């Protein structure tokens, strides 16, 4: 697993920067469906077939392609096809190929369970830029508990087939009450498959499927989210790298490449609503898929007008003063989507995240000190062992010398 490689090409950073200045939609996230063949309790979007029918109507392949074409004409180049599980759509390849023919660079979010047989062959003949595959556990039992299907072996086989063919794969890992015990195995799998992992122990409240239950979700307590987030860091970093991270956390210096790139110091800090947009499965445009709004309707007003609305409404969003002026801001995952899903408002402090961040800083430092303690003990042990071996060696040498002298005396005596 190449831990140090950038997961985002520099050209993407450059184009987003230009897009932000010029107001262009450089990236589009297309949530093709809310349906999924898995049933994970922490999912922010998954609905059953019946719920989908009751809540609205999925867009047709023609509608998706039409929106993508309008977005492409305004500057879109990066596309993420996501869900639910996008591959449950029977017309997935119609949408995929239609968008590729437009000159779009496509990544796909998937649980990986369906990428085999005919579907795999189609992807090998015409691969996406990258698959982002969610790995939910390190054994079939965990998958069954969390996703409702014992699909671990199958998913791993599918990822191996993609990697063998040279298809780019990145893993997404959600650390939850259902899979935290599998972290070591998941890390071992990532190393074996030679893939990067983007892990998060922070789970957004699922307000899109659970109504206005702000701050609620099937997730770890903030303290446990911190604990297992740090446990993952200890797996993925070398001792030296972890020491740097611990020092940075102590000094409140953030990641070089955070999960959502920071583009602005006030309001919405990432690219949402300034150079990127999200389309929900039922045709609503939003800045980000986690947010319940602002919303615009490109199928009714056209892409251009919808994008202008999203940009204007996003520019009005302000985070709580306590967050923007907080000393821990750069090591905290707080964002507009976090605030609104935790509290129901963009300008309210998400205390769950405050607690997780504070605990992450403490737990990282504690783990670093423990490692240093263990390293010191190991160093002391090494010195003792070396000295003992030296002494033993000296003893042997002395005995050899004595034996040699005795042997010489015997010879002389003879």
């Amino acid at each position: 697993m190449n831990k140090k490689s950038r997961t985002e090409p520099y050209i993407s950073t450059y184009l987003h920067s230009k897009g932000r200045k010029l107001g262009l939609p450089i990236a589009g996230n297309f949530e093709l469906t809310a349906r999924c063949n898995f049933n994970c309790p922490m999912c922010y979007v998954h609905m059953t077939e019946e719920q989908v029918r009751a809540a609205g109507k999925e867009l047709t392949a023609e509608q998706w392609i039409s929106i993508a074409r309008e977005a492409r004409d305004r500057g879109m180049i990066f596309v993420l096809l996501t869900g639910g599980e996008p591959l449950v759509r029977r017309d997935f390849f119609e949408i995929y190929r239609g968008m590729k023919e437009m000159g779009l660079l496509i990544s796909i979010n998937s649980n990986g369970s369906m990428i085999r047989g005919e579907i795999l062959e189609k992807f090998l003949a015409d691969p996406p830029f990258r698959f982002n595959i969610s790995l939910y556990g390190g054994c079939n039992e965990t998958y069954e508990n969390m996703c409702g299907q014992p699909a671990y072996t199958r998913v791993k086989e599918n990822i191996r087939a993609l990697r063998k063919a040279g298809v780019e794969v990145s893993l997404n890992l959600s650390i939850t009450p259902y899979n935290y015990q599998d972290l070591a195995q998941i890390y071992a799998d990532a190393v074996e498959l030679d893939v990067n992992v983007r892990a998060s122990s922070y789970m957004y409240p699922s307000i899109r499927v659970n109504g206005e239950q702000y701050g609620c979700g099937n997730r770890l307590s903030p303290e446990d989210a911190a604990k297992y987030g740090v446990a993952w860091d200890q797996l993925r970093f070398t001792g030296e790298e972890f020491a740097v991270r611990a020092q940075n956390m102590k000094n409140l210096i953030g990641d070089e490449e955070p999960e959502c790139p920071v583009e602005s110091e006030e309001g919405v800090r990432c690219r949402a609503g300034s150079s990127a947009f999200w389309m929900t499965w039922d045709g609503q445009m939003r800045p980000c898929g986690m947010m319940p709004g602002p919303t615009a309707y490109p199928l009714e007003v056209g892409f251009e007008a919808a994008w202008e609305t999203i940009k204007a409404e996003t520019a009005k969003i302000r985070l709580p003063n306590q967050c923007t002026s907080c000393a821990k801001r750069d090591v905290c995952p707080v964002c507009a989507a976090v605030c609104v899903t935790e509290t129901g408002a963009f300008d309210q402090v998400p205390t769950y995240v405050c607690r997780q961040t504070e605990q992450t800083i403490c737990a990282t430092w504690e783990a670093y000190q423990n490692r240093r303690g263990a390293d010191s003990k190991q160093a002391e042990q090494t010195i003792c062992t070396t000295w003992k071996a030296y002494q033993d060696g000296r003893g042997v040498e002395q005995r050899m010398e004595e034996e040699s002298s005795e042997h010489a005396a015997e010879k002389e005596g003879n």
Partner: protein
Amino acid sequence: MKIKKQLIKREIAGDTILVPVGKTVYDSNGLFVLNELAAFIWDILPEVSDEVQIVERILADYEVTREVASADTAQFLRKLREMGIID
């Protein structure tokens, strides 16, 4: 000159970019950005048979010396050959 790889040219925010399509995705690490002259050469590649013709077309459209046009053309074509985009 025949372009062997599947690449789609896009104009985005004032930049000319080649997007890999089909199996070309395997050989690339994302996007190719072309400067103005490279974009010009890219457009005329299917219409020309050799380097000399490219240089003549550049001289007809740009106020540049033959030496500069030849050097720039050779550099760009070398890059395309290295990436297996042309023979």
